[in-house]
């Protein structure tokens, strides 16, 4: 398997994780009897009303990340190079909002209700490190890889 094929697989894996995040969210939302995104948009407005203008920043960050996951899912699946830069841009948001790129982690943690906060933070950091390194490495073209000593 050559590097291009490996890159394609890595890209598809991250697209898959993004898709799992979206599907999981929509499934849980529907299970609660809500219309995905619409119900949360109303709830977010209510939260802002209760909390005050200080919530705008946090709510905006959250929705920006959700929107960017939809886009990155599509970019990774279609093997676009821009997916690499978008995933780098997502990293600070994912770390701050604790949304791991390995989206199965959130589901897995659900099986251990008494998990520690430090463990959760550690797993998110590990997940983002793994994603950044893999996307950085497999996002390089052949010349770049040679310069990097591969």
């Amino acid at each position, binding site marked *: 398997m050559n590097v291009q094929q490996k890159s394609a697989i890595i890209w598809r894996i991250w697209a898959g994780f993004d898709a799992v995040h979206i599907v999981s*969210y929509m499934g849980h939302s529907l299970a609660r009897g809500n219309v995905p995104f619409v119900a949360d*948009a109303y709830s977010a407005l209510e*939260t802002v009303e209760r909390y005050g203008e*200080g919530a705008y*920043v946090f709510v905006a960050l959250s929705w920006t990340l959700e929107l960017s996951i939809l886009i990155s899912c599509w970019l990774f699946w279609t093997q676009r190079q821009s997916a690499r830069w978008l995933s780098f841009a997502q990293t600070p948001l994912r770390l701050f*909002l604790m949304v791991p790129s390995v989206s199965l982690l959130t*589901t897995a943690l*659900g099986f251990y209700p008494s*998990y520690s*906060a430090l463990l959760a933070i550690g797993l998110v950091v590990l997940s983002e490190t793994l994603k950044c390194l893999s996307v950085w490495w497999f996002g390089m073209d052949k010349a770049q890889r040679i310069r990097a000593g591969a």
Partner: protein
Amino acid sequence: MNRFIRRDRFMFERHSLSKVEDPFFARSTVRFFLYNPYSLPGLNDLIKECSSELGQYQQLQEDRIIEKIEKRQWYLLTERPLCPLAGRSFLTHRAGERSVATQADIQAKYEDLTSVVKFGPGKWQKSHIDYHGAVNSFFLLANRSRSMSNEGQVIFSDPGGLANTIRTFTQEWVRLEADELSFKLDSAEHWYGELRNQKQTFLHADDHWDVSGKSWHWVPVIPDIVYEYRGGEK
């Protein structure tokens, strides 16, 4: 030490209204010192000001001096005023005086003073709110690390994600509006523009209006406008 000072030279930051004698008592001091004006600093300047307007007619001068004091164009500063301008006394009528001040008199006095005074009755009005971004980020991270497995919601669409965050609610002491002047007699007094800060925490706490008896709100609850009464807030 007693002295007279012209109103335009009166500095509210330096002089206190609690040291300004009520014109009713100030005029008896004037009469006492009128023939020995150098004993009371500032009185000679007041006499000179009246002389330049009226010439040397002494009786007219005295009337003019009293008029200027009653119109509060000149203030008598004294260490122990009998009836200082600051406080309730300048708004209410003097007990020893036979005539009764009308509401219009009190209103006129109030407006006259509040137009220049930077200290007096008022209300606490919302000025600004400081959301402590750095500290709150830590709380959000802590909240989120505990609720990570709670899927099916966009983050922060639920107020619980913002639990325990803090903010500083700042209020400013401002003058009462025209339709609030009924509060002025009982109002506490502060410097206009004075700020006060109160820290609040966002909690799912007891309330008196929600059906469940609990709701997400800032604790303690602070209204945008607070009327502070003498001896306690309302």
